[in-house]
């Protein structure tokens, strides 16, 4: 076949731009794909290949402990409640939902169980115990009974390794913050509402305008 790259039209796919469409990213992806590849394949796509099947039966996010009625896989119920409060302090609800509202505590419990070893699980449990002990010593209340301002104060001290906390404990809290951030910014709300998620960018542009009020990409840095 004769080739002349200059003469050939090529197909542009409109990117799935707006973040509130990210929920439908997969469906849009399939729709875009059928436009591109034509009828035969499109038929195959809706008649039971793996992609379509995977879409229909898309694995539900694990929601262990979201109702907070029972123990998690790693944390007992009391610590799950405490972790939920910590999530709410670290990444609160603003214009968008915060870490607690999207069940980041449940995510962390599940993730620690499946993707981390006993040592890390134990360290995180001990950290929660430590936070609770400090709350009791300073306020004679458990952490979950503190006001939000008091919770914020305790965690800020821990985050900076000050007052009741040392450097090692500070490092452990940074590790917990990493889990909270990972859970939140890979959640649908975090990645596609708080940040901007491009499922199918359609191509690479080296430069577009950016101002401080713009959200960063929630679809960057997750792949290879």
């Amino acid at each position: 076949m004769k080739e002349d790259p200059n003469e050939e039209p090529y197909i542009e796919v409109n990117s799935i731009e707006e973040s509130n469409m990210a929920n439908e990213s997969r469906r849009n992806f399939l729709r875009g794909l059928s436009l591109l590849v034509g009828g035969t394949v499109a038929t195959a796509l809706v008649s039971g290949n793996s992609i379509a099947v995977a879409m229909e039966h898309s694995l539900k996010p694990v929601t262990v402990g979201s109702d907070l009625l029972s123990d998690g896989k790693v944390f007992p119920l009391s610590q799950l409640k405490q972790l939920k409060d910590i999530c709410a302090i670290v990444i609160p609800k603003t214009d968008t939902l915060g870490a607690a509202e999207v069940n980041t505590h449940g995510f962390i419990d599940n993730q620690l169980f499946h993707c981390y070893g006993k040592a890390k699980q134990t360290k995180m449990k001990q950290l929660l115990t430590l936070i609770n002990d400090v709350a009791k010593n300073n306020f004679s209340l458990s952490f979950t009974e503190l006001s939000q301002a008091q919770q914020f104060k305790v965690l800020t001290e821990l985050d900076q390794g000050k007052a009741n906390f040392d450097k090692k404990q500070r490092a452990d809290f940074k590790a917990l913050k990493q889990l909270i951030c990972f859970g939140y910014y890979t959640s649908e709300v975090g990645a596609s509402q708080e940040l901007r998620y491009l499922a199918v960018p359609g191509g690479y542009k080296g430069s577009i305008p950016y101002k401080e009020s713009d959200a960063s990409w929630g679809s960057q840095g997750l792949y290879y």
Partner: protein
Amino acid sequence: MTENLYINNTKEVYDAIVIGSGISGGWAAKEFCERGLKTLMIERGRVVEHRKDYIGENKAPWQQPLRTKVDNLLVKEQHQIQQQCYAFTDATKHFFGNDKDLPYTTEKGTNFTWIRANQLGGKSLLWHRQSYRLGEYDFNANKGDGFGNDWPIRSEDIEKWYSHVEKHAGISGSLDNLENLPDGEFLPPFEMNSPEKALQAKFAELYPQRPLIMGRTAHLTKPTKLHLSQGRVKCQARNECHAGCSFGGYFSTQSSTLPAAAATNNLHIAPNSVVHSLIYDEKTNRVKGVRVIDNDDLTEREYFAKVVFVCASTIGSTQILMNSTSKKFPNGIANSSGVLGHYLMDHNYNAGASGDIEGFEDEIDRGRRPTGLMMPNFYYKPDASRNFLRGYALAGSAYREGWQSLQHQDGLGADYKNKLRQAGKWRFGLYAQGEMLPRFENQMRFHPTLKDKWGMPQIEFDCQFSDNETNMMIDAAEQAEKMLKAVGLKNVSSQVMNGPPGLAIHELGTARMGRDPKNSILNAYNQSHDIPNLFVTDGASFCSSAVQNPSLTFMALTVRAVDYCVKEMNAKRI
């Protein structure tokens, strides 16, 4: 396409058997089929169909139960080795081998990471797609300093075959007119972002001998009619390639060579067929076919052909040759020289440097570019004043930090959340890809007793980086740090690491080409010196690693070998 593309048992004597379905095997099959030869492609693993079997494709992280990560238990049971690969994620894990079934050992005090992709398409599904020609200095390197044997080919022998594969596969890149990195038949390059353009200009000013170019990569930036006819469209810049790409945005067996081969009606594929050994006829001194163990039920069967192309990956191909013993070849078929298994190489990624770029706060890039920038090897001319031989390339990209970097700062609450919402500062790094010398002592051999579940002797690796590679990495870190500081980056830091060979996944050598049958396995056409109808065209045939990513050269060597083989068959010399 043939009605029954996939076969199991057959008495047919094919014109050609191709062992392997990865980058090399896919090309061999396509070229044979298009020349009218009845071809059987043998694949040890399962069938992976384009689109249909890309089960991890385009799933947002929240649609994955562990948000891209893989369950500990699965890793522990099946992927202890494979999980070391950067591309091993929940969306790709099914394209990596099960380590439990694929055991190997390493000589005491050494280490080697062997990444496996045993399915139709092989590592063409998982590769990083960087595509570079070898240059004249690369083909001359062994001859120049005496490490390894002389490549039996030079640029002029292979350049038209590079062109041939580039046009079909679709390689994006810029024409850079460099002395030792030949240009090719390129689709337009990916764009640079603004800091990258600025750095490129600064490098040109301060280091005119060290240009920074856009990485050349097997992605359709602007598909031709040929690509569209393959059912492929423009790369969408998702950079989730390793999960499979239904757009056919990058070259793989499934997206490119397999449809072309199947369209001829000359192709059959025997999946789930673990090649045990080649069947050798001493009387005619020809290979007659292959012995296969069924991947699933371990039964045996045989396939026959007039010629056999071994394209089973560097280690895989040599393992098959070593296991094909006879009275004439007690130490492995085609091994009269005794060098089979030796001169194993990889690339060395053990150095890099990075820093902050000031400015450019009012812009950001958009989309996930599946390639970075590349500073080609600037040490391609031998120079005795350096404390190492050969050289390295440097690669990297400029990007704005996101929450992954910003999360480490102190802070809580709405203020912290708002900081993580914004894009951070621009960063840039340069990371080395160094040449590894061909050394006789770096080798793969059979473990004296251990076998795998198919009865194949297990591989034992005895392969290490030498002082030459270590000195090179120290230099790479120093040079990268020095250059990044010179072009104005801040907070520059560099590091030298100590990773073992294997993880670059550029295994090369072990059945090398050469001019002299006494010290090489293959001739200048990847044909066995000993047996005329036996060819090995993958990375096993390399005489030196050079600095460039090798896959494009696998393709070019393969199509050149097929062209030669068919001519020899027509002339009745095979």
